[in-house]
């Protein structure tokens, strides 16, 4: 009974203030260790890298979710002491993030837009860093009869003709942009059709929705392989040159955004384009499969 609650409340207010102070102290401790001189490296536990600075990489879910960047970036950090902070979005959002100056370096896959933005001066130092391909996946029963067809446009035509479910990312990502170009080539406007589900989500979610709704979708090979064992979708079409998927790496132009860490961005680009970086990309495997191929795909 008593006035326990009053004492409790006072204690709570006190704790809140104490927490605020502790948090502030925690922050400043962090800041202090940031500004320690370089030579402190020797004291570090072996294997723990001394972080001296950070860059922000805006990229797509397809490079991040499969684990490629978790594989590459620590090696870069070990070499340079620069931590890479990854923001993974759709390609459209990633390009916008970069264009606003909120990132330092980009790794995306919409070559046409990338080249245009480089021309406009938003980004510089663009390189074709790696490629893989898109595939069309769908239910094993293959209701649209896509199996055996050679081109993606033809497959899309079959899906539309049979009014079979097609799940679109609908998020202005690189994959989404590629998909819309294919519909355009097929002369079909799927927007608003009953069988066309535009869900506005990432690749992993889109595959999951396609899986649950027994539909087809266009996916990059990497994401499909990465989550291959948690869905029942099978590859319906692959190998069409039109489905070639080129990734580019580029820096935000420091002339547009003087605050960006352009030098570090260049270091990162250099790392990815070096023999070592290219070999690493080539060696990266998920579920026993290679996901990305170094360099430029269409020679």
């Amino acid at each position, binding site marked *: *009974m*008593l*006035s326990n*609650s*009053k004492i409790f409340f006072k204690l709570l207010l006190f704790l809140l203030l104490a927490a605020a102070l502790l948090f502030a102290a925690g922050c400043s401790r962090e800041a202090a260790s940031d500004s320690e001189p370089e030579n402190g490296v020797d004291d570090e536990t072996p294997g723990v890298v001394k972080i001296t600075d950070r860059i922000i990489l805006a990229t797509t879910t397809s490079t991040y979710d499969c684990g490629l960047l978790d594989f590459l970036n620590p090696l870069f950090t070990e070499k340079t002491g620069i931590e890479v902070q990854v923001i993974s979005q759709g390609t459209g959002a990633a390009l916008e993030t970069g264009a606003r100056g909120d990132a330092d370096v980009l790794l995306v896959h919409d070559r046409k837009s990338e080249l245009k933005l480089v021309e406009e001066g938003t980004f510089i130092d663009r390189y074709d860093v790696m490629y893989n391909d898109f595939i069309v996946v769908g239910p094993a029963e293959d209701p649209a009869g896509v199996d055996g067809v050679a081109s993606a446009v033809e497959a899309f035509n079959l899906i539309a003709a049979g009014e079979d479910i097609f799940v679109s990312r609908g998020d202005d990502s690189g994959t989404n942009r590629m998909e819309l170009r294919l519909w355009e080539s097929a002369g079909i406007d799927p927007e608003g059709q009953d069988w066309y589900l535009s869900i506005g989500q990432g690749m992993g979610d889109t595959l999951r929705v396609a899986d649950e709704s027994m539909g087809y979708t266009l996916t990059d090979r990497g994401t499909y392989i990465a989550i291959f064992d948690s869905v029942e979708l099978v590859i319906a079409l692959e190998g069409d040159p039109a489905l070639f998927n080129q990734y580019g790496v580029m820096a935000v132009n420091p002339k547009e955004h003087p605050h960006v860490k352009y030098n570090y961005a260049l270091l990162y680009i250099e790392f990815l384009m070096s023999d070592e970086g290219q070999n690493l990309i080539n060696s990266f495997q998920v579920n026993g499969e290679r996901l990305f191929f170094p360099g430029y795909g269409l020679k």
Partner: protein
Amino acid sequence: MANHEEFLIELKGIRKYYDREVLHVEQLLFKKGHVYGVIGPSGAGKSTLLRIINLLTPPDSGTLLFHDRPIPANGAGRLAIQRKMTLVFQKTLLFKDSVRNNVAYGLKARGFPRSVIDERVGSLLKQVGMTDLAARRADTLSGGEAQRVTIARAVAFEPELLLLDEPTANLDPGNVELIEEMITKLARNKAITVVMVTHNVFQARRIADQVIFINQGRIVEMGPTEKIFSAPDHENTRLFVEGRMVY
């Protein structure tokens, strides 16, 4: 003429309006050591009068003098005067805290040392027969107990002026007697000036030595209790104290 030192508080030309004029007091003087009973029908402006004296409601015009000096509009001077009086509200309100801490509140506000607080609170609780309940959460008390604590809390810091707004309105006869006893004892022993609003004319007659009759925001008559009850100047006063006034 009475010694000026005895003029505790004086109201001059005080008016208060809400949707209409609810109080208009040309002049009213409270002297030290008296027990005033304020009577009048409901809505007459009795509570408003107490609230204005306690500096809780600002009047729309007029001045308040404390020991013959005008009360500052704000600042430490005003607080110092406010600390010399207190109001026990019509509606009992105790803090959600122990009985002991409730009684100690005014003492703590005035920065009394701990030892003085403990001693005074202890003796007061004894006087009102609540020593056993000192640690109880005050909002779990019965109506009579709660009102006893309210009054103990109000007198703990020995104010010069104790304002009471219908302190026994919702109590059973036993508790009414107890509270009335407390009030008279306090006024006598501690020389606290008491202004008690009551709608119960018999209570005014029992406790007060001066009675003020208010009707429709105006003081109709004021004088020694005996005179008001036996030979009032006004017809309305007579009707009211005889319980016959229709309103």
